[in-house]
């Protein structure tokens, strides 16, 4: 439905570089990335609010580049300043209908407002609405505009948790009703909760596009892994051994024994912090990976503690408070971390 082809754009000292993207009709596509990586810029470029220096954008099979914004039938909803402040909710929702000289304006406004749950606040001015109510009104206005693709720029960022959950339900329902949504956020939980497909942005580049499951199961860069909260993520090379079923993973600073079907080549390796044990001495037994290091940080987790141990690279270890303190551990202490070869998740 929406194809972004080799889009590049320079704005002051920041640039979007060679962005390629394909979004199918009915997708809920989340552009995920830290602040300032170019997510909103890409969104505005798709909407036609910025002109790319290179590349093409196709929507519904048509080249969009020379089509004026007002004829693209793409609605954009921002995080704040979502409504026209001098118009009440009814007038805001009616705005696109009047602009397009549509008939049955009142009927359409009421239908859109009912769909988003804002019909009881038609006379209210934007300044008197909560963040969640303003977003509902803005979504109703986009529905009234008849767009089948919504571009949402951090729509849930400045609203309270309760409204956020309600709006997520609304957004999912809108998506199920056939509206394609492109949603920009820096919140990976929001992405998991809503997306059917995710694009990860980093420094003006789209570094990874895949289904939500694939992105979180198999991140393809340290940035992605760290950004989505995955710890103990390494990039390196795997080699097989002649007399063992174990493979050796070699990264810049560490060698790890692992069990993997892959024989050789460049791979990514992840180890769940819960699969690693921490001890004062090397643990005997079937565990093949032992590394001596120094405790760098201790952070409380929802359950237990996450201990960062520096073994040349930082490793996160998830332990119970009881176990940790009974071993007399603290920041600066030398310890051993131990994990099985089978705990390593290797993929290419």
């Amino acid at each position, binding site marked *: 439905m929406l194809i972004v082809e080799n889009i590049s754009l320079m704005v002051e000292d920041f640039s979007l570089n060679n962005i390629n993207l394909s979004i199918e009709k009915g997708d809920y596509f989340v552009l995920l990335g830290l602040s300032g990586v170019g997510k909103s810029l890409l969104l505005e470029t798709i909407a036609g609010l910025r002109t790319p220096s290179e590349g093409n954008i196709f929507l519904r099979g048509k080249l969009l580049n020379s089509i004026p*914004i007002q004829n693209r039938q*793409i609605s954009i*909803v921002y995080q704040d300043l979502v409504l026209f402040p001098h118009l009440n909710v009814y007038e805001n929702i009616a*705005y*696109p209908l009047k602009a397009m000289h549509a008939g049955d304006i009142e009927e359409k406004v009421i239908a859109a407002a009912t769909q988003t749950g804002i019909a009881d606040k038609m006379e209210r001015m934007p300044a008197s609405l909560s963040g969640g109510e303003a977003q509902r009104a803005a979504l109703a*206005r986009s529905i009234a505009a008849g767009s089948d693709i919504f571009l949402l720029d951090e729509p849930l960022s400045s609203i309270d948790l309760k409204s956020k959950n309600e709006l997520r339900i609304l957004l999912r329902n809108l998506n199920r009703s056939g509206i394609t949504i492109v949603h920009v956020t820096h919140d990976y939980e929001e992405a998991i909760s809503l997306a059917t497909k995710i694009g990860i942005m980093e420094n003006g580049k789209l570094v990874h596009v895949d289904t939500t499951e694939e992105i979180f199961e198999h991140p393809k860069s340290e940035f992605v892994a760290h950004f989505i909260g995955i710890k103990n993520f390494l990039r390196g090379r795997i080699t097989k051994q002649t007399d063992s079923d174990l493979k050796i993973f070699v990264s810049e600073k560490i060698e790890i024994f692992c069990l993997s079907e892959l024989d050789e080549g460049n791979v990514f390796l992840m180890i769940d912090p819960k699969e690693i044990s921490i001890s004062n001495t090397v643990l005997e037994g079937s565990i093949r990976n032992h590394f001596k290091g120094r405790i760098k940080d201790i952070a409380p987790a929802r359950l237990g503690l996450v201990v960062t141990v520096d073994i040349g690279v930082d490793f996160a270890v998830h332990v119970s408070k009881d176990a940790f303190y009974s071993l007399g551990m603290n920041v600066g202490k030398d310890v051993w971390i131990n994990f099985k070869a089978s705990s390593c998740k290797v993929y290419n």
Partner: protein
Amino acid sequence: MVFAFLGGALLLFIIAPIAGLYLNAPLSSWTETVADKSVQDSIWLSLWTSMAGTLLFSLLAIPLAYILARKKFRFKSLINGLIDVPIIIPHSAAGIAVLGVISRDSVLGQAADLVGLKLVGNPSGIILAMAFVSIPFLINAARDGFCAVPERLEKIALSLGASPVRVFFTISLPLASRSIVSGLIMMWARGMSEFGAVVIVAYNPQTAPVMIFERFTSFGLKYSLPAAAIFVAVSLLIFIILRVISKK
């Protein structure tokens, strides 16, 4: 406390001369001056020519202000500086400059002659002179007003299917209206009080400032005081009414 004293002294500096106008003009002379047809005509001429100039030139000033607020282009700073030139040059010089453009020897003067329009010594010339010296007040206020309108709102409106013209009239203009109205009032008030430029372009028919000046030079302070007091009262009254309306 010191600031309050300094501020109070400044306010006194503004209020004292105006108050002096009324304290020094005997009440008996007021009724006579109000009834004077030439005084009435002069005040009315000042009011309507200034209003006409403001409205007429707002059609040019508001679009220019929008361009200056929204677009980036070469020499924009130069144009912004140029707009303030009428404020900084002596107004008699401004009058001579305007006269140079509208006199019968000029292209504009000859073109006006062709359609039977007289510019020098005529209300149309007065309108041009008033507009020349007062237009910066409108352009600057409108430009600041448009700058304060978030561009994002205009973008949203465009994405909702509104044409750029519709966006201007339904979003940009209403949201900048307070600044624009303020600029219109300032332009009108400044134009109405203009003497230096107007007296060079049109000594007759006489606007109120020219009439007050003539009374002062011909008959002295005593004779000019009631006319000045009446003109100031009328101006202040309209100014206050417009300010109140614009803030609602």
